[in-house]
């Protein structure tokens, strides 16, 4: 007789990890695709991209050296100029958050936990060859060592925590120059004027496109939802830059058409929101999703996974390597509104300006439980908004799928109150 026992396959930890990640990814993508009015057709590229990378684990950069970056302060222009690809490693998966918890204090930031979790699982679709860790917030700075212990090669890039002084500018410029030299030696590539100029222009063009798309949201009938915008900007973390540029170019054309047709992706009375605080990183787009499901629309943001990544541009007076590097360095320090800096005046001014420019009705300030700097700045930002008469709500959240009920109630109440205000104003 033939032994007819059924073959039982055990799921490997890696497969399990992939399955969990894919579930998280597909759940949010499905909601984005189907819970709202029709998204722009050009968004299909981005939905597919995230599905390819996070559900099918498709590598995008097998032919290039990959430089993982732990924060936005690592100059991508320099990495591109050395013929490598920057990959932003800030992670948004709850699965990774849980894995990383074992390595960090219980009250640590979920983003940092998730990032470490990804390293622990060592399950990358594009595995970084080198990790650059700028000394921005405490938790990020310290996780460099943890990652190193896991067997990765980590380069600490010194970053100042004040930005007003002449000394800090010089310090950071020196840091960036050193980084350029070290990376160039490490990769065995020489940085040339031509290549650096090309990469400054290319990243500059990507920024230019982002701005072009972003300003369309100033229209009272916004052509694109905030959550879709977050997906577009999140894609910049890891996508091939020329592919990203092509896709955004198409998206801009479609959105411009929508503006012309006066298409409104929200509703007539949907309150307009400026989103600020800890960065929403795919698939943790929970709060933006809740806001827009509650019939509000995010028209602008002040977060490092989106606006802050693109906002400030490099300007160069003389196109020499040294001058370009200094210009690049300044871009990542001087305009940065990250709460790790001693003062937070710039961030407050920026939020107020966004509210005015984008005719927003209110601000949502979200901080991850454990993201100390954002939690600490909350009070002063709330005060500043109150002074300006701008309604604001402060939310604390993490990566877990629980607590949704409470968050929904608070967000819905806030949106409702904004609607009332709007009605009364009329």
């Amino acid at each position: 007789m033939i032994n007819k026992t059924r073959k039982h396959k055990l799921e490997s930890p890696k497969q399990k990890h992939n399955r969990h990640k894919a579930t998280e990814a597909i759940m949010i993508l499905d909601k984005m695709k189907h819970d709202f009015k029709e998204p722009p057709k050009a968004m299909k590229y981005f939905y597919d991209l995230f599905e390819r990378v996070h559900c099918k684990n498709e590598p995008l950069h097998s032919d290039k050296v990959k430089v993982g970056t732990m924060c936005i302060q690592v100059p991508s222009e320099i990495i591109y100029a050395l013929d490598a690809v920057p990959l932003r490693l800030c992670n948004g998966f709850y699965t990774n958050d849980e894995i990383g918890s074992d390595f960090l204090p219980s009250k640590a930031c979920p983003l940092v936990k998730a990032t470490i979790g990804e390293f622990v699982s060592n399950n990358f679709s594009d595995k970084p060859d080198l990790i650059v860790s700028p000394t921005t917030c405490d938790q990020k700075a310290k996780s460099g060592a943890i990652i190193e212990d896991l067997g990765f090669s980590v380069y600490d890039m010194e970053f100042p925590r004040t930005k007003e002084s002449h000394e800090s500018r010089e310090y950071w410029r020196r840091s960036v120059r050193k980084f350029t030299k070290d990376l160039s030696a490490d990769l065995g590539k020489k940085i040339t004027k031509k290549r650096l100029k090309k990469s400054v222009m290319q990243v500059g063009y990507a920024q230019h496109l982002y701005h072009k798309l972003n300003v369309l949201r100033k229209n009272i009938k916004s052509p694109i939802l905030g959550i879709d915008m977050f997906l577009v900007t999140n894609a910049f973390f890891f996508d091939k830059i020329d592919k990203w540029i092509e896709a955004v170019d198409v998206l801009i054309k479609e959105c411009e058409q929508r503006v012309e047709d006066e298409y409104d992706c929200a509703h007539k009375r949907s309150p307009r929101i400026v989103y600020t605080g800890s960065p929403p990183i795919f698939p943790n787009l929970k709060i933006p999703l809740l806001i827009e499901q509650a019939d509000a629309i995010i028209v602008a943001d002040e977060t490092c996974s989106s606006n802050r990544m693109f906002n400030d541009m490099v300007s160069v007076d003389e196109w020499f390597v040294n001058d370009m590097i200094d210009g690049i360095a300044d871009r990542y320090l001087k305009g940065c509104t990250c709460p790790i800096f001693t003062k937070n005046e710039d961030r407050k001014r920026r939020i107020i300006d966004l509210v005015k420019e984008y005719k927003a009705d209110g601000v949502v300030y979200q901080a991850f439980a454990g993201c100390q700097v954002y939690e600490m700045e909350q009070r002063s930002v709330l005060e500043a908004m109150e002074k300006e008469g701008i309604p604001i709500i402060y939310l604390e959240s993490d990566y877990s799928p629980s607590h949704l009920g409470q968050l929904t109630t608070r967000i819905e109440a806030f949106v409702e109150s904004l609607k009332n205000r709007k009605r009364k104003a009329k």
Partner: protein
Amino acid sequence: MNKIKNFINHADLRKFRFWLQLFFFVFFIYGGYLAIDLGRELPIFACGYNHEIAGTCYFMPLQHQLARPWETLFSVASIGVLTSFFVFLLWFIVFNKAWCGYACPMGTLQDWITSLRKFFGITYSTYTQPQYESLKKIKYIFLIIVIVFPLLLGLGILDGEWRGAFCDMCPGRIITPMFVGDFSQWSIDFSTKTAIFLSSFGIVFTALFFVGSFIKKRFFCFFCPMSAMHYIFSDVALLRLKKDGDKCTKCGDCYNVCDMQIKDIADDVKSTNILRDDCILCLKCVAACPEDDALHLDLVNYPIFKSTKGGFAKRMEIDRWEKKDD
């Protein structure tokens, strides 16, 4: 109207400035051949030692006028001193410090030396902030030499050899005549000790002018007493450099391109009038600002050149991208 505004805001400032500077340089240095004479009250270093100059630096007559004996200086006889001062003020008030950035032959010459440096592929140098803070005071010392020394002369405290002391020290006296083939100013006057000191100071300063401006952008402007004089009256000028601090992200793009290393342009978000004493109103900062309306040049209160996202992208050539293989 919007089209014109858009055109101006997207303009290639570099080209515009190059041609305007070239025009003014030729105009002032060689204007005399065409019998052009704009008088002796110009707020730029168009030096009268060049006999073909189309108008003279105000400091030359000013020093002579102030050196009159005090009884004459403070009498009706010196009404001319006042009128020439008003003529100077009139010239200045219209264009403000744009005289420095666009019309001054010495300024233009420095920009050309900068281009030469660029041609050789040499990077510029900058001062550190503490150096900057102390060096910037020097121009006020020169201004004292321009104004107070002649007064002391009139009082009889200083000797006649101090007459026109600043002119003797000024590189403009030595350099400007060279362009019409007159090299006679390259000499040290051995008549008296003071003359030796002043004229050799002039030679050294001129040598520094060439070396300095090769290394540092607009090296001389930093020490220019005319720039200090401008600043005293710049608040009443019609052309104004304004800043809207709310729109500024302090990114420092303007500071990066500033030939004069003015830190306030990026860091000061409170002042609306952002013109500082070192400013040469070249407008490179406005051209390099990526935020809409953050920096603008106003004629009285009407903005004529504004910073725009689009203009920035166009000037940086990041508004287009062609795939090129290298």
